[in-house]
Each structure stands twice: as structure tokens, then as C-alpha cells.
């Protein structure tokens, strides 16, 4: 079910005279959620900024294909998560010719001052989540942090609910084990 705000935005976008106004509203309504879902995966602000901008640019280019079967936010999340996973895959593949390991760079990110509240549990938790395979990490963030339903996550990732439940279960188990060891 789309909410009124989505319908208003789509009406503005579908009218050539108000398209830009509607698109600006779309960005204003969803930018924070899109940015944070990306940032949790890539950690570094500059990367999250690039991917957030690319997400909205792709949305603008393909808004004509949006059928309205899902909400705008699940559609935007689908673009954002595809952009993010593609980015992480590229970083991983680049490693063979690169001097620095992207994963190590991300892990050391938490040790920099000012990135997190400094709470030891938070830092440990962030590091533990980072060790998960990236798709498990994405499911964990969408389910646990964003509190989306499995149905919504299935729409975003194009994956079956059963597979998502298994993925989430494994992610939680690994995180709990890791926290209990400390």
C-alpha cells in the first residue's frame, strides 16, 4: 500500500511541468533512509554519498518504469542495495591489483576517533557485523536495524522469504556467539 505522500510525489513526477518539483520532494522524503541503509554497508561517508546520489539519479532515469506495485521506498531501497552490493563487489575484485585491502580499511574505520560513540559494545558489534558475508549483513541491517518485514525485504532483494529467514537466523547466531565470546 502506498501512502498519500508517495501518491502526491508520483503525481507531481508524472506531470512534465512539475516533474522536477516532485523529484526534489522524493529526495527530501527518502534521502536520510537511503543514505543510512547505504552507509551501514559501506561505512565511509564519501562512498555513501556517491552511492546515495547514484541511487536517486537512477531513480530519476527509471521512474517511468515504476509500476506502483510496491511502495516508493522499497523500490528506492532495491536500487540502493543493488548499487551498494555492486560497489562492494567491485572493491573486492579490485583487491588483486590494489595495495590496500578494502575490508581491512573498513575494520580499522571503527578505531578512528569520532566515528562512533566510543562505546566498546558498539564498536565490537559493528566489527562483528562487518565480518558477515555482505548479503547476510544487508539482511541483518534491513531486519534488525530498519525493522522491515520479511515481505518488504523479499521485495527489495528479490529473494524468497524462507531464504531470508535462514540468512537472518545465521547472522544473528554468529553475532550472538561473537558477543558471548567477549
Amino acid at each position: 500500500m502506498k501512502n498519500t505522500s508517495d501518491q502526491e510525489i508520483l503525481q507531481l513526477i508524472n506531470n512534465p511541468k512539475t516533474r522536477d518539483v516532485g523529484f526534489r520532494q522524493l529526495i527530501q522524503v527518502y534521502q536520510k533512509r537511503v543514505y543510512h541503509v547505504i552507509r551501514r554497508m559501506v561505512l565511509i561517508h564519501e562512498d555513501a554519498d556517491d552511492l546515495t546520489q547514484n541511487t536517486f539519479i537512477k531513480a530519476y532515469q527509471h521512474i517511468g518504469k515504476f509500476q506502483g506495485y510496491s511502495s516508493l521506498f522499497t523500490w528506492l531501497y532495491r536500487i540502493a542495495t543493488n548499487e551498494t552490493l555492486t560497489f562492494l563487489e567491485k572493491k573486492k575484485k579490485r583487491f588483486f591489483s590494489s595495495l590496500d585491502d578494502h575490508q581491512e580499511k573498513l575494520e580499522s574505520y571503527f578505531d578512528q576517533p569520532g566515528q562512533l560513540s566510543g562505546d566498546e559494545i558498539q564498536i565490537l558489534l559493528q566489527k562483528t557485523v562487518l565480518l558477515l558475508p555482505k548479503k547476510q549483513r544487508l539482511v541483518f541491517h534491513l531486519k534488525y536495524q530498519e525493522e522491515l518485514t520479511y515481505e518488504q525485504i523479499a521485495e527489495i532483494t528479490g529473494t524468497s522469504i524462507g531464504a531470508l529467514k535462514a540468512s537472518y537466523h545465521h547472522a544473528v547466531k554468529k553475532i550472538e556467539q561473537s558477543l558471548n565470546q567477549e
Partner: protein
Amino acid sequence: MRKIPKLDDFQAPEGYFEQLPDEIISRLTEKSKPNWIQYAAAVAILVVGFGVWQFTSINSSSDQSTLNDEVNLYIESQYWTAEDVLSMSDNPEAILDEIIDEELILMEDSWLEDNQNLF
């Protein structure tokens, strides 16, 4: 699940979300505008390139094929590695992106990789 606390959100720089819509819209406007300088530069490069090619093609075709043979020989004999060839390229990043993009088309939406296939 009670044992796991919620993760804190990372903070975006101050004023970031106030500027973001303008930045995105200005990128869209730039993309849609015809860039006459780029067109003029492209035409100039084509004209100069065509002239240079005309001038050199008479003598260089045999040199080029010899060079290609030599390059292939180095690669096939494994004297040069993939990293060597990339490092000699003017833009290795673009070549890598191209290779990765081709591979990603095959795996896009497959959701089948990672250490454990748990989807």
C-alpha cells in the same frame, strides 16, 4: 535477540541533507545539458587524429603488427602478468571496471555468491 543492542547510526556531516537535493538535481541538469565544449573537443581530436593516422598509417602498419606480435608473445610466455599489462595501460581503472562490469552482468540478481549461500 535481547542480547544484541541496536547499532548506532553514523553521523553525516553537518548540513549534508540540506545540500544533497541540490547536488543531485545539479548533476541531473548537467547530464541533460548538451556540453558544446566536449563536442568541440571530440571533433578536434577526431580531425587531428585522422590527420596523424593518414600521415603515419603508410609506414606504421607493419610496425604495429610486429609490436602486437611481441606483446602477445610476452603475455603468452607469461613473461608479463595481468598486473604488468594493466600497469602499462593509460587507464587501468577503466579496464578493470569494464572487466568487472561484464562479470557482474552474469551474476546480477543471482544472489548466489558469498562464503555461504544463505539466501
